[in-house]
């Protein structure tokens, strides 16, 4: 009997579970004390550095929340929505405007984001979900494409009026710039936590000792908030799925006719999950606002955004929350790192060409477009060889 061979439910199993939970919690808490804004590492064989900063980690966490929202919809009810970027955008702008123009704290803005996404989800969902087929995809596609034009509306761009020459509101094409730092509350002993991690024997020095100094407490607090939101959403999604309602979702997805024959109201359940998913995506948007720094309708490409969340869910495994979130981290990492690899690859291809040739310049410039191609290839491969994703539904 090997060391790892334990019976499910035995006391050994519980010990193993407890230890792995402790390790996971330690790693989750240690992350903000370890990474700074531009943490680099150079893997062997591939030329160039991979950069992982806190900003990217926090972005990945926001994506994970959006994924949980979308997975409820496609994984557990089989509905196809292309418009979740609309709700992400709505959440992002609501939080952004409230934080910048009205000085609200991040958590307080969520109290506005969630109800407004609920309401919008209902307005969109009621007409679209009554009818079977691709109508939800159709409506939500149109919705996400018109989102940037809504943001640019004069009325919204300056609805808060002018405040000394500076318009309040969504600011149209200029975009929002949320740079309010997350001041940690006084009860949180961030210094103490830093001391704890730095005091660990042997590995303590990697937690920002020496010339690197300590990590910014605002970033650490922001990370802890994001972690808390992610865990709460995870718990929520899990409980929804495990509940009576969640079983109804799965029954409807697997056989609509038989589920409705057993007295399940198909439309009501679909609407419920759509609205819930919308609100969760709104929260994800709120988290994203505080990160990108700049929120402009020009840089925000709704379809690309939707496509990326979809790939994350499908690669990770639709119908499995852990899988979907892991898929999210994986795809986000690739999305960020494909560009350096693309530049390296194009550099390799073009190294034989003469300098200044048009083709060389063209190929080098197209490295930036490698991302979408790579994502498309990954999607096709997953669909072809592992359509249930990396971690299939149990």
């Amino acid at each position, binding site marked *: 009997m090997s060391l790892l061979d334990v019976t499910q439910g035995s006391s050994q199993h519980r010990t193993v579970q407890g230890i792995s939970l402790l390790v996971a919690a330690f790693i989750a808490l240690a992350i903000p004390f370890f990474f700074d804004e531009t943490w680099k590492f150079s893997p062997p064989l591939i030329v160039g550095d991979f950069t992982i900063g806190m900003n990217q980690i926090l972005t990945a966490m926001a994506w994970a929340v959006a994924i949980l929202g979308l997975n409820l919809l*496609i994984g557990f009810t*089989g509905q*196809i929505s*292309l418009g979740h970027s609309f709700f992400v955008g709505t959440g992002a702008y609501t939080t952004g405007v409230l934080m910048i123009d009205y000085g609200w704290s991040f958590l307080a803005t969520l109290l506005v984001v969630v109800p407004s996404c609920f309401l919008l989800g209902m307005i969109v969902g009621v*007409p*679209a979900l*009554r*009818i*079977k*087929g*691709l*109508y939800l*995809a*159709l*409506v939500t*596609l*149109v*919705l996400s*494409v*018109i989102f940037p*034009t*809504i943001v*640019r*509306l*004069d*009325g*919204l761009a300056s609805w808060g009026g002018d405040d000394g020459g500076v318009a309040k509101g969504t600011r149209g094409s200029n975009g929002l710039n949320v740079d309010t730092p997350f001041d940690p509350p006084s009860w949180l002993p961030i210094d103490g936590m830093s001391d704890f991690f730095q005091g660990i024997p042997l590995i303590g020095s990697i937690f920002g000792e020496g010339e690197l100094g300590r990590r910014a407490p605002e970033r650490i607090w922001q990370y802890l908030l994001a972690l808390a939101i992610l865990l709460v959403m995870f718990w929520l999604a899990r409980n929804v799925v495990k509940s009576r309602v969640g079983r109804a979702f799965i029954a409807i997805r697997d056989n609509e*006719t038989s589920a*409705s*024959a057993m007295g399940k109201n198909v439309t009501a359940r679909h609407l419920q999950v759509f609205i819930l998913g919308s609100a969760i995506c709104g929260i994800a948007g709120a988290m994203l606002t505080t990160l990108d720094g700049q929120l402009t309708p020009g840089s925000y490409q709704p*379809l*690309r955004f*939707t*496509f990326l969340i*979809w*790939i994350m869910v*499908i690669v990770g495994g639709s119908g499995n929350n852990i899988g979907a979130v892991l898929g999210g981290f994986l795809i986000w990492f690739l999305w960020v790192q494909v560009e350096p690899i693309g530049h390296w690859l194009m550099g390799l291809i073009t190294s034989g060409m003469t300098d200044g040739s048009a083709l060389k310049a*063209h190929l080098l*410039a*197209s490295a930036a*477009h490698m991302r*979408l*191609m790579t*994502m*498309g290839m990954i*999607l*096709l491969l997953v*669909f*072809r060889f592992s*359509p249930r994703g990396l971690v299939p539904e149990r």
Partner: protein
Amino acid sequence: MQLLLARIIDGLSNGATYAAIALALVLIFKATTLINFAQGSLAMLGGFVVYVLAAEQGIPIWIALLIAMLLSGVFAAGVERTLIRPFDPADHLPLVIITLGLLLGIDSIAGVIWRNDPRAFPSLFPEGNVFAWGTTTLRWYDLGVLVSVLVMVFLLEVLLNKTKVGLAFRAVSSNLESSRLVGIKVGQTLMFGWALAAAVGTLAATLYISSPIRQIEPTFMLRVLIFSTAAAALGGLDSIRGALIGGLLMGLIQAFFGYLSGWSKDWAWLPDIGNELNLATAFVVLLGVLLVRPAGLFGTKAIERV
């Protein structure tokens, strides 16, 4: 009055292109109940082929258009064979995501090749007006677009109703399994449907972009796609006649909204719904159709056995 008339003419000529793209959507929907979200991008690619042939190579534009329609048909048939056919047509999820990926992929390839700067497009029709009455003008372009789309619909009807390949296509649309049993080559027929839809799309894109006030750039078909999906839903997703009428109606509704937004400037309390919210008319129409008449004006009502 003159302004209203001008808007109506504008709406009809826009509506004709929406109708053509809606028609392409309907062709594929009829056969496979799939909405091809990449239809606009395929058409955009066709438009660029026309641009390269006509503006850069100096081939007469109508011949360039025919070559481009042929090429885009071949390309779309290849797409159907490699990216669509391997997947189960009854499972919408992978297919929707693949067409969405195709949309983004084609757009970004076009962005790499032609960059995102607008270029002037050679015109299909003579410049100038057929007639002018004050501010109301009927350009040769407007007339040309309307006539071209009507001729195209006529030819399509002939193709589908009077030829053998059209018969096979209608059989596949009506029942995929049975047509396979009677010996129709379903795969090839679907490839033909995709090719036909892409050729129709290329014609639509070329008509749309050859307007004297428009310039060609890689994302120009996204707007058209949005209006066309609304038009297809309005006319009924499985009706060719519906696509034509839905498209024209969509164009008129959009023009009418534009006309109204001219008024709304007088009412200060109304937000300016002018050009910015133009796209939202498509959304409003779509929601309205789904609320009032989900099958569209001419579509087949879905009857379910529960």
